């Protein structure tokens, strides 16, 4: 059967090679909006080939919706190739910057300790805040965020996921 009717949602990483030219991101995001595809994150950046960009899209979708998302993406003329990455055979990372409220010294040292455990970097220390950089899987960033939430998060910025398949040389 094509397009199974299982409606369970799960998390997917979709990787697309696209033409590196103006308007491509617009076409992709407009497609998602027009067809009501829910996107968790989307990142775009340069690749080893100058004229191509890689878009990494993460989405919580059921199989049928994912199947349509991939097929509709492939239909776009500016999209060269689309793959759903098997998360077990993929390296993927996200970078996040988290500005945490930290006035008293105990809080400050606790945050620094947590950051070290999460292999994060302290990027900035102000009078009332500490800004931490955490890089990892989205789960890891969520875990850190949950941990420091009690101090109060002043600002947070996440890049979305960037991903490549493990090993081999396939694009």
């Amino acid at each position, binding site marked *: *059967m*094509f397009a199974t009717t299982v409606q369970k949602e799960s998390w997917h990483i979709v990787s697309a090679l696209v033409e590196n030219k103006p308007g491509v991101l617009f076409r992709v995001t407009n497609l998602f909006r027009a067809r009501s595809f829910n996107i968790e994150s989307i990142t775009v950046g340069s690749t080893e080939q100058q004229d191509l960009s890689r878009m990494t899209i993460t989405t919580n979708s059921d199989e049928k919706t994912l199947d349509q998302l991939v097929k509709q993406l492939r*239909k776009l003329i500016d*999209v060269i190739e689309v793959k759903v990455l098997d998360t077990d055979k993929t390296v993927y990372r996200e970078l996040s910057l988290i500005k945490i409220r930290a006035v008293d010294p105990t809080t400050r040292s606790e945050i620094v300790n947590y950051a070290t455990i999460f292999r994060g970097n302290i990027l900035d220390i102000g009078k009332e805040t500490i800004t931490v950089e955490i890089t990892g899987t989205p789960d890891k960033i969520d875990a850190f965020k949950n941990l420091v939430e009690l101090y109060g998060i002043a600002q947070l910025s996440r890049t979305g996921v960037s991903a490549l398949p493990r090993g081999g040389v396939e694009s």
Partner: protein
Amino acid sequence: MTGAKALIQALEKEGVDVVFGLPGGANLPIYDALVDANFRHILVRHEQAAAHMADGYARIKRKAGVCFATSGPGATNLITGIATAYADSSPILAVTGQVPLAMIGKDAFQETDIIGVANPCTKYSFQPRSAAEIPEMIKKAVYIAESGRPGPVLVDIPKDVQQATVDMKFPELIKVRGYNPNVEADLSEMVRAVELLLNAERPIIMAGGGVILSGAFSELQALAELVKIPVVSTFKGKGAFPENHPLAMGPIGMHGHAEANKIILEADCIVAVGARFSDRSVGKFDEFGKGMSIIHMDIDPAEIGKNKSVDVALVGDVKSSLRTLVKMLSKKMIKKDSDNPWLKRRKELIQYYAETLKDYPREITARKSLKKLRELLPANAIVTTEVGQCQMWASLHFDVITPGTFFSSTGLGTMGFGFPASIGAKAARPNVPVVDIAGDGSFNMTENSLAVSVLDKLPVIVFLMNNYMLGMVAQWQRTFYNRRYSGVHQHNCPDYVKIADAYGAQGIRAESMHELEKAIKAALKSDVATVIDIPIDPEEDVYPFVAPGTGLKDMITGA
């Protein structure tokens, strides 16, 4: 050479023989270059009509129809026509003027981000930033519009790019990296399709618009005749198969033929050829095709599993897939008895509904008028429609005999489409009669194209079933809103005979079947457009009717 000149030459090289359009500030250089073009320009009175004409032309020629408009409102006026073409996979090339490069993004006079506006309803769009890009872009635009699943392509050219003078290179070959429209169906899927068809007791073909786009008429007929399968169609697929053929059943759907809606539910295997299982055709997605096996042929891989999960998918041009399927089947096929129970059932259903479904009790009705039209038109006449009751009556009561001679705005359902589209069709095939089966509500929207029809000598026939009512809306208000009419009455305005007269066309009112016969004969002889004004009772409904949100099994056959 200027960019504008390069555009005209590129179009000439693509074999364009007619362009429909209207000039304005931002495409003046294009219109200047047009003076020396070796193709015809047809001046419209509203850009929407230009897009519909290009669409009508494209559907008959099966190659890209071209329309021109200026920036801003000119371009936005095209949008309804572009969206119509997109919904029905029709290849049109829209060329719009744009404000000069330096003015883009400055909210200049008559500036619209038309690429952005058109994005959801175009297959692709281009905006050259230098004149040298134009020849290649036009070649790519036509290629993308016509190949694979066809669709509209927009080329938006800033005014200074039209004016710039550079050395032009016209490429012979082009390649679009992310676009591979030529796919062949998977052989293992083909084997499974053969097995399913050989084992099916009650197979049925559902012919969609893809058959017409692909010109796969003889291939479809070969499959139907080999396996002796009844053939229903979607509305877009109407006329993919001759409707007077002994296996034909007509369109299914919301206002499908009763026998077609009935038989498809009794089938055990559906071969959907170039069809997309639209809600108007199949009713509820989940209910349709339950317990049957579905073989889906389509050139667009994204159609597989979009609305309906299927058992076998044959992705590729349906003409080629059908050919392979027939070849493989003919080796294994055991001759089927022509009076097997399934074909008997077909006859039984047709006979039952012919006796059961009564016409509206009046001297002149939609059914009688359309049967008379069919009787008097040659088989190769081209017929299109407006949208609403007139369209559904055409679907029910006008049989298409020569495949590919019928089209309509089936996907978007654009009122005002039929008349300009019929003029485009006439430009594509001037030697056959072209008829727009119209209602007054729709015709009113684009009737100023009468000027084009008269002045450009493209005489079409407007078969106006006139109830001075937005009839389909009125029917729904009768059925679902307890006869509370709201915004549907036209109050006997305007007088369509006088409208025709005002444009120098021929207007004939036909108040009896005898007068109608005379009017059709006069229209067929006329060298100007003819509007035949046929009074239809505003209470005459379209039946059968499958109410929205219900399944084909819930079909209502009469009041």
